[in-house]
């Protein structure tokens, strides 16, 4: 293919090429292969997608705010929430499934795992990114490889282990397996590799700081932005986790998803009550989402991994 000259291109491709060339000179970033604003169809379709995202949640609020009779009469709830939301919330907290305790359990597990994942992942990530030691490369590859192993499949022996340790029914049985994740290690390695200059570490070492002191006062503060995101993802994963907690916690010390299951099993006719339970389990994360949704989007786009 021979190289067409610039005048030739401007002639044949006309306005759009000229415009994009102008834009480029001005330093305006091009998006989506076109610098035009998208047409209304794009907004309409995206609008429908968002309606699809929000509707099930709105539907939950509608049911949670009506009484059982209204729900039974109308399969399609009226679009305006009824006045029973508070009553139903009170009722669900007074039911024989202890949602206060479940909420507290969920908070304990989510906070403990987030804190420990962030700490241990930063520690390991710092080591992989900035320290040199024998076997570093292969060990890092090993860490990444473990991400592909579906650990859920080990539930049977893991349960046996927890039983031997006497931890069945104990929150530790849920916290322990999630204390550090391969994803977390990988995430922090990636981040610290580029975000933490060697000069800083050396300066601290020359000043006579011990290895751990260097980590604590140099690496940990530098890791803060990535650590916040990692904490966010770990918190969400922990809060929504069901399979393992439902196996190992039993009915005595449920987390919220386990409590929802008990609620459904016990009160399956009382839809309003169950939906009130759903509202309770969803609200904390919706709040987190409203505060940190932007970071969440950024985190996923930086290459977050599912689960």
């Amino acid at each position, binding site marked *: *293919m021979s*190289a067409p000259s*610039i005048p030739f291109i401007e002639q044949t491709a006309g306005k759009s090429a000229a415009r994009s060339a102008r834009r480029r000179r001005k330093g305006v*970033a091009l*998006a*989506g292969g*076109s*610098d035009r604003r*998208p047409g209304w169809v*794009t907004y309409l379709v*995206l609008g429908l*997608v968002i309606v*699809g*995202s929000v509707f*099930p949640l709105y539907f939950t609020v509608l049911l949670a705010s009506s009484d059982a009779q209204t729900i*039974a009469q109308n*399969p*399609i709830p009226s679009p305006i929430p009824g006045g029973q939301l508070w009553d139903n919330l009170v009722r669900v907290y007074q039911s024989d499934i202890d949602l206060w305790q479940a909420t507290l359990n969920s908070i304990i597990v989510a906070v403990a795992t987030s804190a420990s994942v962030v700490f241990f992942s930063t*520690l*390991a990530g710092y*080591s992989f990114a900035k*320290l040199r*030691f024998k076997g570093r490369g292969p060990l890092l590859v090993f*860490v990444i490889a473990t991400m592909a192993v579906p*650990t859920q*499949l*080990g*539930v*049977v*022996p*893991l*349960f*046996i*282990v927890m039983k031997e340790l006497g931890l069945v029914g104990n929150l530790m049985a849920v916290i*322990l397996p999630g204390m*550090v994740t391969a994803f977390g290690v990988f995430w922090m390695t990636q981040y610290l590799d580029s975000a933490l200059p*060697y000069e800083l570490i*050396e300066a601290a*070492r020359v000043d006579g700081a011990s290895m*751990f002191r260097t980590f604590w006062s140099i690496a940990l503060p530098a890791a803060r932005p990535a650590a916040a995101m990692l904490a966010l993802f770990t918190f*969400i994963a922990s809060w*929504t986790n*069901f*399979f393992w907690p*439902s196996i190992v916690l039993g009915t005595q010390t449920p987390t919220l*998803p386990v409590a*929802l*299951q008990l609620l459904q*099993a016990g009160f399956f006719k009382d*839809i309003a009550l169950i*939906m009130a339970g*759903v509202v309770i*389990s969803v609200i904390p*994360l*919706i709040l987190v*989402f409203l505060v940190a*949704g*932007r970071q*969440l*989007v950024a985190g996923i786009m930086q290459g977050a991994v599912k689960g």
Partner: protein
Amino acid sequence: MATQLAPTRGAAPSRQRPPRKIGFRQTLGRWDVKVSPYLYISPFFILFAIVGLFPLLYTGYVSVHEWSLLGGKGDYVGFENFSFVLGQPNFWTGLRNTLSIFLLSSVPQVIAALIIAAMLDANLRAKTFWRMGVLLPYVVAPVAVALVFSKMFADESGMINAVLGNLGIDPIGWHKDVLPSHIAIASMVNFRWTGYNALIFLAAMQAIPRDLYEAATLDGASRVRQFFAITIPMLRPTMIFVIITSTIGGLQIYDEPRMYDQLGQGGNSRQWMTITLYLYELGWRQRDLGRAAAVAWLLFLLIIIFAILNFAITRRISSADDMTRTAKKARKAIKARERSAR
């Protein structure tokens, strides 16, 4: 010295000091430098050994033994657990349901995520709003999603059947029938993950050099053609990643079918009982951990087969010859243009 700070040699404190007499502090410092890296990575490896690697291997050991939930280990039985499981119609029903739900969720999900990503990639107003809006379902626990969808898809008192009824369509047995129940469960999975995957695709799309599109526009390629000739081929690694992760997750599906009715057994004739549900039933309802472990191994095998299969298919689809050729052509054109511009 095998262990030291990189990249400068001799950053260790013991070398900074005059070599008088090696005191306790220096020895300690050298040990600190040598041992610390291993110490820092050890929590992951120790924990992985206990809760990841050991259980994975131990599953094999448990699966060839009689093993009761309450009584513990019994006799060695060889492959009896496997042959028992493979002889159960319920296992095959579970396999069918798992594959069906998996296909119904992953295929539309990837396609929808690609389309949404392409739209988000346009020069939108209020970008963050749209991105967050699409991601919202991700923070809702699958258990909660399942409860809500189960109500929406209720056979007699559900909203969806009521809406269909208004349109003159007969009610569908969302809980009663096999395929409708799979569609309902797949829709829960799609609800939660489509936006998330769209953002992953979006990130990959934004990494595609814009010049490619410009060149294609100059060549007169329509936007649709650009999407298939440039965007899709350039997204290949991301597609492989998304498809593999959704395979690993999708074949293990448990939360959604478990919560689809209040009994959690996958329907009265096991219409939507998945393999993981069956694993739970064997292990914790029938209290036979040996058989449950056998199911775990079979599921593991299935995941590996599908991961390899998907990998092969994805490579095939997105490397179709003429697409890459178009992309290459576009690249060449750009280079040529830049040359002549100089």
